[in-house]
């Protein structure tokens, strides 16, 4: 039985240190099915590290990640967890040796062991969704940043994930390309996908997400609805951060 109220993903007492430097200090929060959570905060506050720990690209120093109530590291097969919890990177990280179509197929073939025909159909379906199907034969080096990021999103979606993690997906883009990627993400949020988004796009955090987590020096300083965070932040440091960001 799936309990609708039970969190799909929860982070419990997560700590991460690089040598003596403690980047994450006891982080706990949980995400429910269909939640779109934005994580904001200044550079160096640990946002990206948090996301990378959720996906085990960084090994947590302490604490655990639970997915559907089970420990993601010990009770889920590694490949299955990664397939269900996808990731979109700041620097796209499309596989440079493959065409756009192959990028969206390789995970399906190698990890989910789908047959090539099914994988191709699925890949084309999602490429169509992000408006990139005409470029299926192009190589990553031949695309613009915004196009690459849309392909990266299609690649993640083709794995049929339950949760998608976005690590500053628009930070490496030219300003004029930010819109096309945010447009795709907005559509995904409305489709009911569970999303965890580290972002500097305050408009996205305010208008699209259901919840905003504000991080400051390795802790969650404030976790609330976007209305509360943006109109009446409880913490002084949240106010300070927002006034710095929104002034620009």
């Amino acid at each position, binding site marked *: 039985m799936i309990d609708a109220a039970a969190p799909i993903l929860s982070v419990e007492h997560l700590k991460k240190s690089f040598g003596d430097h403690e980047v994450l200090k006891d982080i706990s929060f949980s995400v429910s099915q269909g939640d779109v959570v934005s994580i904001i905060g200044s550079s160096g506050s640990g946002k990206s590290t948090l996301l990378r720990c959720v996906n085990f*690209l960084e090994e947590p120093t302490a604490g655990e990640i639970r997915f559907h109530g089970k420990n993601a*590291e010990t009770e889920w097969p590694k*490949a299955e967890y990664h397939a269900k919890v*996808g990731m979109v990177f700041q620097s796209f*990280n499309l596989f440079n040796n493959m065409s756009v179509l192959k990028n969206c197929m390789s*995970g399906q073939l190698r990890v*989910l062991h789908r047959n090539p025909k099914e994988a191709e159909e699925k890949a084309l379906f999602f490429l169509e969704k992000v408006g990139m*199907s*005409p470029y299926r034969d192009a190589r990553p080096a031949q695309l613009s940043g915004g196009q690459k990021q849309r392909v990266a999103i299609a690649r993640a979606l083709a*794995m049929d994930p339950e949760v998608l993690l976005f690590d500053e997906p628009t930070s490496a883009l030219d300003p004029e390309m930010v819109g096309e990627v945010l447009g795709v993400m907005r559509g995904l949020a409305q489709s009911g996908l569970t999303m965890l988004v580290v972002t500097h796009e305050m408009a996205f955090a305010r208008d699209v997400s259901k919840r905003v987590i504000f991080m400051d020096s390795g802790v969650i300083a404030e976790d609330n609805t976007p209305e509360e965070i943006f109109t009446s932040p409880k913490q002084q440091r949240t106010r300070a951060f927002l006034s710095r960001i929104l002034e620009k």
Partner: protein
Amino acid sequence: MELPTSFFGWVAFLLDKYGMLFLQGALFTIVIALTGTVIGFLIGLLVAILRTVPVGAKDSRVKRIGLKALSVILSVYIEVFRGTPMIVQAMVIYYGTMQLGLRMPVLAAAIFIVSINTGAYMAEIIRGGIISVDKGQKEAATAIGMTHWQSMIHVVLPQAVRNIMPSIGNEFVVNIKDSSVLNVISVNELFFMSKSAAGTYLRYFEVFFITACIYLVLTFTVTRLLRVLERKMDGKVNYTIYGSQSDSQASIKLVKEGEVPID
């Protein structure tokens, strides 16, 4: 029989008399160099993949100790075979196995020596290639659920190998030339054959002039072929755009017949 008197006279004479010998020598040289480079490349790949297996603090003791031991063994292999001349390795391996009662066919011994020697160099070249691939590529492969082997074979190594193609070509050229040292174990490669040919009439200059030309032709051809292969690996410069260019930002304007679209 009248013997030639000029340099080129001798060259023509020797070519005529020993043409088949030179040809056979060149063939052996190519076979040894090519097989040795390919097998050496495979050894290098294997070593490089094994040496890049990620080890976390949470891995089991057995895995950590096993990998550590393996890494030490592989380092010793690389150091020993890079640090000693191939000519010495040939003597030690060929005569060593013979004393142990194992008589290797001489061609097999030659290929074995070149392969294992090339493997030690290739391991380092490939390690360099792997380092040259952006680490985001490995991360993306991990994030999509691939294992270390899968991400190496499907994502990292194809890019690494493309980057190190010039070095692999170098290694092949070096093998064509350096397989000449294997004459010490009497394998019928080009240098050994030339030495036999030169001995008969004591015309070392003329014979080795021919030999040099043959080596040059071999290495030059191989270099050109590798360039073609590199270009092939880069893929097509152009790509087809399918259907309409329905970019997510593209907008469609509906215009009635006879009307002029307003921009």
